[in-house]
């Protein structure tokens, strides 16, 4: 991560814009125990109160790390019921990184965020249709399968 991903210009820009970065040794206490870190690299997205919303374990190249971070930021907004901000970030993932491993989850979560903000089932059905069409082998397509019955 330190040699390839963190020096990447787009990674630096995204972190500077949306996040406060902290880097600690894998066995740094009390943080390693508090966040139950067992392997490195472990990258965790927290909200400003220190609550965890997303984590990745293992190396990610910039083209996967950036959408993963964006997904983490979106999850922070989602978990705090700031659905419009979450949707905005998820749509950026889908627009800029549609081939990333984070994209199917972003599409799923976008559907849920739209549902929670409108209380209409259509976004869930639409999420499943798009997942089936665009990411047929994704686990998120399987998770969305019940929405076809809505």
């Amino acid at each position, binding site marked *: 991560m330190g040699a390839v991903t963190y*020096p990447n210009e787009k990674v630096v820009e995204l*972190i500077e814009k*949306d996040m406060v970065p902290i880097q600690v*040794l894998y066995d740094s206490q009390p943080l390693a125990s508090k966040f139950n870190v067992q392997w*490195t690299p472990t*990258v965790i997205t927290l*909200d400003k109160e220190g609550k965890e919303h997303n984590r990745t374990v293992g190396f990610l190249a910039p083209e996967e790390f950036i959408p993963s971070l964006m997904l983490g930021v979106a999850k922070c907004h989602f978990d705090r019921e700031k659905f419009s901000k979450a949707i905005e970030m998820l749509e950026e993932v889908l627009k800029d990184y549609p081939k990333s491993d984070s994209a199917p989850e972003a599409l799923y979560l976008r559907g849920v965020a739209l549902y929670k903000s409108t209380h209409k089932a259509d976004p869930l059905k639409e999420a499943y249709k798009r997942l089936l069409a665009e990411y047929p082998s994704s686990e998120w397509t399987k998770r969305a399968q019940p929405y076809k019955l809505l």
Partner: protein
Amino acid sequence: MAKTIKWEKDFDRVLTLARAENKMVLLDFFNPL
């Protein structure tokens, strides 16, 4: 000169900054080996 990430080291300071700047926190656990 290329920009680099300005890593913080103190968790409490990071939370203070995140609240003041209304940002999320990226917490990276690394192994230098």
